[in-house]
């Protein structure tokens, strides 16, 4: 997946959709929807974390490795933005 042409939030949304397989099952979800309530498990969260870090080529700080960070597309996007070397710089 390339990230250079997409805003972070949209890329995060695509990764979340792929990891949780939501659209394929007819789910619609917005930036503030609780992913844990949509069926995310600790295992899918693990895959999501690895995919997020691989895609954006970042390492989330240890304090971000918790349930709350992965609750919504919005919270994940915020964590990605905070972990990128210079905010707004495309990878």
């Amino acid at each position, binding site marked *: 997946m390339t990230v250079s042409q997409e805003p972070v939030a949209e890329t995060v949304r695509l990764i979340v959709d792929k990891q949780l397989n939501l659209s394929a099952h007819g789910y619609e979800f917005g930036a503030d929807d609780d992913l844990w309530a949509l069926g995310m498990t600790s295992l*899918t969260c*693990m895959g999501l974390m690895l995919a997020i870090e691989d895609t954006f080529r970042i390492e989330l700080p240890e304090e971000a490795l918790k349930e709350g960070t992965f609750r919504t597309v919005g919270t994940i996007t915020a964590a990605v933005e905070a972990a990128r070397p210079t905010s707004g710089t495309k990878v």
Partner: protein
Amino acid sequence: MRKEGVSKTERPTQADVVIVGNGALGLFLADELVERRIGSVVVVGPSDREAGASQAAGAMLGCFGETTTESLRTDASRTRFELGVAAHDRWPDVLDRLEGYSRTGSPLMVTPETHVVLNSIGADLDTVNFSAMIEALDEYGKPWEEIDPREIPGFRPRLDTRALRAVHLPAEGAVDARGVLAALDARLRATGAIMVDQTVRTLVRNDGEITGVELDDGHVIEAGTVVVAVGARSEALVRTALDDLDMVPSFPGLGFAMLARRTGGEPFRSVVRTPNRGFACGLHVVPGPGDLEYYGATNRLVDHVSSVTWMADVRFLAQYSMQQLDERVASHEVTRWLAGNRPVTLDGFPLIGWLPLAGLYLLTGTYRDGFHCAPLLAEHVANELQGKPGTIDPMFKPTRRPIETRTIEWSINEYVEHNLAGWFETGAEAAPQMTTAQIADYYRVMATKFYDTMGIDYALGPDILWYAQGSLLGARRVARYFHRLAGGNGSQPAGTATGEARR
């Protein structure tokens, strides 16, 4: 005979050898080096040994009581197992040497024997490990006899968790871990080693060699040789000097145990334990010292070294001790809560050897039998520090690739078995119509998904798998380590030559 040496309370600025860590591995090594008169030896470690594995250990001198189906299945695990067998023979001399320095008022060897009981509260894992133990005893020609569990002194479990079989091991006992550490400490002070009651903050290097250690208050001790033997904290300390080293990762295995005073009923006179089971070392009681009894132990891999335990672990140990060992435990008086962090490596094998920085040696990763193996490993490491041939297989060098002992399929099956053991022991209940096969399926799907998600083809042990699937930090460490290995050299984890599965 005890020598009255000069009290060494000063903080030196130089030493020939600095040992970081005052647990069993560090102290036994220091004792060996002092015996060999290799020069000045300084041991650095806080006297309370908080969160260390040794101070919380049950210190069973057991290798056959610890046997599992995995112990002898591969050449690598057999080599590891035989370390324990060889270590066992060292203990009579060790205790002769230390007894004169002990001030506990009780013998350091609290019992010379063990009873291993097979009850039905676990799952099939108990049964197969019990059989594996008997096969191993026979293979190595060690004494054992099957006895009626009701004949074991002190053993009075609840009737619904009574043992159906029991084996008496007359040659596997236990020592008083805290007494042995105190005696070693006293002996080292008397024989000229310098004990520094502090922690090491960083290793100090100059280009390609180690030059010393820096303590937590900035004081530096220069040394040409530094041995890191600080248990579950070892990897982090090594990384203060070798940040980018591709070392087999290690994790703290947090264990909880209790020392309690018996208030009634017949006391235990031997170690009484279950086989190893459900990610852990089996439930056990170790008698002594004096009128105390040691109950252990839980095992849970965690992100960071900690001495804080879960309430669930306290419940686990207290409830199952009452159910499976002796109902009278309920009114025992707990005199000490013990929490310690075992150094657990990714592949389950120790990390012993020189690191790629001249003068820096690593001695850790011994998981649950570091105490038992410490006298044997001390001889080996002392040899290596003196430039002599080592006495154990070099396969444990820290810079190895992870040793393989299983396939992914095997790993998944083991994970399922361990979870089932935990499921039944904890009394978890499924819907009445749900079968054991369905519960097993649930865990099988979890483990399969885990491997799919991680994208690794190295097969993990059940404890590491359990940890990594429940910890984002753990999963990331494991995944990144293997991705780095694959990217670095494009080859698979090595060790198949020694770890090839036999079945």
